[in-house]
């Protein structure tokens, strides 16, 4: 006896780190068909490549001969440092894949025939994910470098960001016009932030700049005002990309990655948003487009209510404001992932509170363990087609001038 006609065994019985992205994401094609996603202009405003895969190539872009020598010596002499030299990769991040349950978080170790460099391989992987999810434009960020705000040596963090930015703009962006990025700012050094904007703002594919927001710098400090002014003048958005931290005073009490991730991916942006609004940055730079990235959405109505409540009683603490904090917050932009979906009524209220049809932009966060496919937006029953089109791509088209 044999198996029947019409029965095909899947070549991949178990998806692992070595499975091709297109096979991992094959089920996303059902959403494309079900919701007609090929008819939508889809912009993914937050996705990632793994810069540590190309780390030796990136370190060659270090400007300082002394620091480059340090990197070379680390890579040569430390057994596990060939793809970590100078980096502050937090050990807790290796808990993200839930002990191998979500393999693509740990590694995309698939074959990329013909890719002669880390950059070529990265572009191949990005294209596979975009095509599998019907994404037209993808904004690509690094991964562990988003922790750079916690680097113990800020000058090293600044040098690494400069090297990475030069590598990305010279090696990744020219290879694929559908890839865009917001480049990380060396936020500990306000002058270096300005220099970064001047060096890269006109580079094709650079559509904004990023505060890797797990850090302890107050975003309202006077030293940053020239940065905000130049971004406003250039019409370039500033994004705050959240990150986890299992070692600060709050999360250090937590014994599970779930706990630290759920909290610290939000509290870092809550902190910055509070300083941003209460110190009247939106009043000082009304044309500066602000984007809050990868903190989900449920925190925003909380912030609106909490800050409004306190502002009405303590107006003298926020004298630059001419309106309640929630009014400014509603005029900011948000990326959608990880969209809290477990209570439809609460999600609908959240989207109404943030004026989602005009302020929300779809993001996948691929290849992270909590990524969202575009079908997540397309399937929401309480949004009309116009709102879905805006969220999936049209708002991003306007914000970034795509």
């Amino acid at each position: 006896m044999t198996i029947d006609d019409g029965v095909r065994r899947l070549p991949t019985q178990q998806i692992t780190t070595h499975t091709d992205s297109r096979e991992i994401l094959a089920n996303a094609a059902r959403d494309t068909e079900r919701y007609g996603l090929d008819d939508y202009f889809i912009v993914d405003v937050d996705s990632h490549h793994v810069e540590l895969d190309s780390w030796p190539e990136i370190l060659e872009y270090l400007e300082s001969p002394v620091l480059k020598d340090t990197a070379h010596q680390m890579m040569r002499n430390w057994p596990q440092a060939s793809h970590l030299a100078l980096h502050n990769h937090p050990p807790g991040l290796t808990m993200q894949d839930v002990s191998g349950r979500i393999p693509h978080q740990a590694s995309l170790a698939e074959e990329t025939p013909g890719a002669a460099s880390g950059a070529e391989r990265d572009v191949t992987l990005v294209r596979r994910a975009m095509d599998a999810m019907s994404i037209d434009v993808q904004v690509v960020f690094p991964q562990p470098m988003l922790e750079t705000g916690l680097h113990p040596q800020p000058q090293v963090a600044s040098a690494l960001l400069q090297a990475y930015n030069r590598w990305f703009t010279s090696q990744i962006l020219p290879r694929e016009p559908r890839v865009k990025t917001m480049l990380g700012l060396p936020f500990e050094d306000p002058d270096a932030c300005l220099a970064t904007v001047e060096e890269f703002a006109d580079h094709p594919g650079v559509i904004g700049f990023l505060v890797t927001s797990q850090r302890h710098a107050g975003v309202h400090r006077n030293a940053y005002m020239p940065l905000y002014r130049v971004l406003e003048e250039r019409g370039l958005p500033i994004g705050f990309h959240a990150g986890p931290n299992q070692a600060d005073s709050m999360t250090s009490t937590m014994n599970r990655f779930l706990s630290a991730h759920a909290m610290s991916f939000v509290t870092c942006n809550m902190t910055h948003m509070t300083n941003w609004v209460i110190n009247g940055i939106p009043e000082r730079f009304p044309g500066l487009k602000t984007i809050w990235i990868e903190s989900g959405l449920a925190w925003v109505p909380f912030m609106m209510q909490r800050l409004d409540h306190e502002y009405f009683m303590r107006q003298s603490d926020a004298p630059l404001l001419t309106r309640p904090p929630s009014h400014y917050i509603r005029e900011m932009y948000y990326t959608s992932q990880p969209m809290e979906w477990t209570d439809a009524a609460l999600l609908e209220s959240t989207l109404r509170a943030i004026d989602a049809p005009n302020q929300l932009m779809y993001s996948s966060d691929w290849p992270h363990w909590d990524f969202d496919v575009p079908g997540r937006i397309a399937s929401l029953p309480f949004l009309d087609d116009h709102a879905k089109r805006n969220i999936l791509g049209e708002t991003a088209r306007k914000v970034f001038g795509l």
Partner: protein
Amino acid sequence: MTTTLDGSTGAGGTAPAARTYDVGASDEVAERGRLVVTVGHGADAVTVGVFRFRDRLYAYENTCAHQGGPACQGRIVSRVRERLDDERRSLGLVFDDSVMHVVCPWHGFEYDVTTGRHPGRPDYALRPVTVAEEGGRIRVTV
């Protein structure tokens, strides 16, 4: 041996007339093992995961209840539990080998293969598929 939930006849409840497919020999699905196959053609094609646990077969459509990920192609692992002593102090995490989970590789949703249900939210469930084993052959009906 047949596995169904809530009297369901398996995948594609509103699909054309059900058809039974021979998908392989019994010894191709080992204890705590699986076989993932696509049956049918075109729009009617359904991908099904067949699992064996304690010598019984269970089958589900390869679509996660969360975002539609390939749940049957994920890691097979025993349910994790936390042991407490008489004073309710934690004794740490242990595998419960009496419960076999399959984990959706997209986002980690875990399902008990004997019920197809998420351990914390039973209404998040894989769609069951009728599976039978007879004469050393495995057949699914979709």
